[in-house]
């Protein structure tokens, strides 16, 4: 394709990416370096149904004047990145000096919001992603070997968890695993422990969120692998069968190598998605036991507190996290590209 033609083909996409991806990222990065001006506080008399009181409030005129001069706020450099809500450098250093064992150090780290969130986020990402790939692949192979007439129905039901809105799906599960819900009661009966509660235990909550994550995302892997299975070269499969390969060996040496690029694709998408886990934490009201970076952003943006700078900083850290996570895959793609160019 001529460069000129390529340019005009690509221009609308480039423009959209600039407006909807690049500009918001620039704005978020900018926001993370600025905080609101120092508040001008005054004591005033407030009256209402319960009488009058002297209370502190913000002097709006004075604040508006300061804001008018510098609309972006105070420039604080990277200090938000280093504060207790984020990388917490001072607190981490103090914990390192103050704790006599690695266990104690990690305990103290878990008390800081960012590290607590990143702890759960990483565990979630690195358990859910492989599990959902394995499960998705197993379902795909299973459905593929079904009788033609059953396939349609099986595909539809396998896709259901993915069709349900994540928030709705997690709310449905939330009530089912309640200690008075159908799954919660069943577990109590099976464990013979009437006080067993999934929602009251941190480890059980984590397991529950991970199971939910696999349940919700496995259909995505299934659809991709199922499509891939339709392109497996029949000649190779048949020659493997003639050579006496078992079903497992056929999958291991013929099907899997053929699907490898798709595995990379699913892993890439799901690593990104799972790193941004949010809906299940919200839906399961699990914030007492598990938080994630996205959940921190959500809670910072809550209307009553509205910490824009804190939320922006966590967003930038999330972007950096995703970039680090995808680095191996991106490096490999880059190498393939360079290799292809030679």
């Amino acid at each position: 394709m001529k460069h000129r033609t390529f340019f005009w083909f690509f221009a609308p996409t480039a423009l959209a990416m600039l407006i909807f991806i690049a500009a918001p990222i620039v704005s978020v990065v900018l926001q993370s370096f600025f905080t609101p001006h120092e508040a001008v506080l005054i004591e005033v008399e407030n009256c209402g149904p319960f009488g009058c009181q002297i209370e502190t409030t913000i002097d709006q005129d004075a604040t508006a004047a300061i804001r008018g001069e510098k609309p972006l706020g105070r420039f604080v450099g990277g200090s938000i990145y280093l504060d207790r809500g984020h990388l917490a450098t001072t607190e981490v250093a103090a914990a390192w000096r103050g704790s006599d064992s690695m266990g104690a150090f990690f305990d103290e780290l878990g008390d800081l919001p960012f590290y607590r969130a990143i702890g759960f986020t990483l565990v979630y990402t690195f358990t859910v992603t492989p599990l959902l790939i394995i499960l998705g692949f197993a379902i795909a192979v299973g459905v593929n070997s079904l009788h033609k007439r059953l396939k349609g129905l099986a595909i539809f039901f396998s896709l259901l968890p993915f069709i349900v809105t994540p928030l709705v799906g997690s709310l449905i599960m939330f009530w089912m695993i309640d200690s008075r819900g159908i799954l919660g009661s069943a577990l109590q009966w099976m464990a013979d422990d009437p006080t067993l509660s999934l929602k009251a235990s941190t480890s059980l909550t984590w397991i529950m969120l991970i199971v939910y994550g696999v349940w919700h995302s496995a259909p995505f892997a299934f659809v991709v692998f199922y499509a891939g299975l339709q392109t497996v070269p029949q000649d190779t499969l048949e020659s493997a069968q003639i050579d006496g390969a078992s079903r497992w060996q056929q999958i291991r040496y013929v099907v899997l190598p053929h699907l490898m690029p798709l595995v990379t694709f699913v892993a890439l998408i799901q690593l990104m998605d799972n790193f941004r886990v949010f809906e299940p934490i919200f839906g399961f009201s699990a914030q007492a036991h598990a938080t994630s970076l996205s959940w921190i952003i959500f809670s910072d943006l809550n209307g009553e507190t509205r910490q824009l700078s804190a939320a922006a900083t966590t967003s930038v850290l999330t972007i950096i996290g995703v970039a680090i996570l995808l680095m191996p895959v991106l490096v490999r793609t880059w190498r393939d590209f360079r290799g292809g160019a030679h």
Partner: protein
Amino acid sequence: MFLKKIAIATAVSLMGTTAMAAACPDAGRVSIVGNEFPAIQTIGAGASACTGGSVEVSTNLTADHQTINLPGMISSPAEYTSAIIANSSIVALMNDDVIRPLGDLVAAHGADLKPNQLITINGEVMAVAFMANAQHLVYRADVLAEAGVEVPSTYEEMLAAAEKIRSMGLMDNPVGGAYAAGWNLAQEFNNMYLGHGGEFFAAGSAEPTINNEQGVATLEMMKSLSAYMNPDFLTHDSNATNAEYRAGNVALMNMWGSRAATMTDADGVSDAVKDGFAIAGPMTVAGGDTPASTLWWDGFTVAKNISDEDAEATFMAMVKAIEPAILDDDEIAKQAVWLIDGYEPTEAAVGVFAAANSGTIPYPMLPYMGLMHSALGAELADFMQGKETAEQALADVEAAYITAAKEKGFLN
């Protein structure tokens, strides 16, 4: 001729009275955001009744109102022309300067309003309150009678009653409480901390002062109570706690007045739960005189970033929605402790009235209280699960609060 005169006189006097009473606006856009409990649904419906001609009224009543009202009012023109708020949530709107002073509108259209409905801040009317609210005890009179215990007036008595009910095998988890991690848990801390005589901030500054004996005692009491709650208590908000009560699993709980009146009005509530339902005032704790609760008002505001025409239409529609005539409906009269002229307290109102009469402290209207509330909600869950000490939890709250307050420019 004589008859005609009378007819005209009557017509004139009727017109006179309609002009005096609240009226719907002639034109303008009214868009309301607010919470979803029954009394606010009534206000929303009342304002919506003004729709017609060139008046457009829309409402968005949701439990998430606090998250969306500020973003919806900060733009110009604002999406919401009125936010129904309480003494806690008005602060966020004041901090960002998105609501307008109502003095001239009150003078023009506020003949029905009583002076104590006007919320004045630094001499300017910023909101119009229509109801009072507080958390107080609701209980199962039948269960307490069966257990042979008096209605508790202190949290210590509540613990003793709960132990009795449990040991007699009447209920496994007789205490209810909105202890969901986040806003609810923090609010229960606030109640109990004020009951212990605690102060949130050093006088006249934004410095936190909760890591002290009262704070520790507060947390210990909350922990003791949680031992008598459903083990999932950290996920139970007011709605879930009410559901537990309706299901007959709870005998004693601290609940919002605004939800108490309609507590048992739901499908499938057994007769025992309905008949045994009773309301009492808020409890005290640790021998204190101040009830472990907070006083609230709910009221409406008018957005700053809208045209004067829309502001007037909004104000008129809202005043119409809270006109004294709405109290003629008994169902509406019992929905809340109305501050509206002509309100007669109903049976459901005794809890809130007891709170107001026994010196309960109003929820603090401070610009940085929201940050403290968020810090409490996020950091107390570890203590409630027994993962850290009360002192450590309170130190974490202060550290989280200070970080947020520095960012927002309240502390250096």
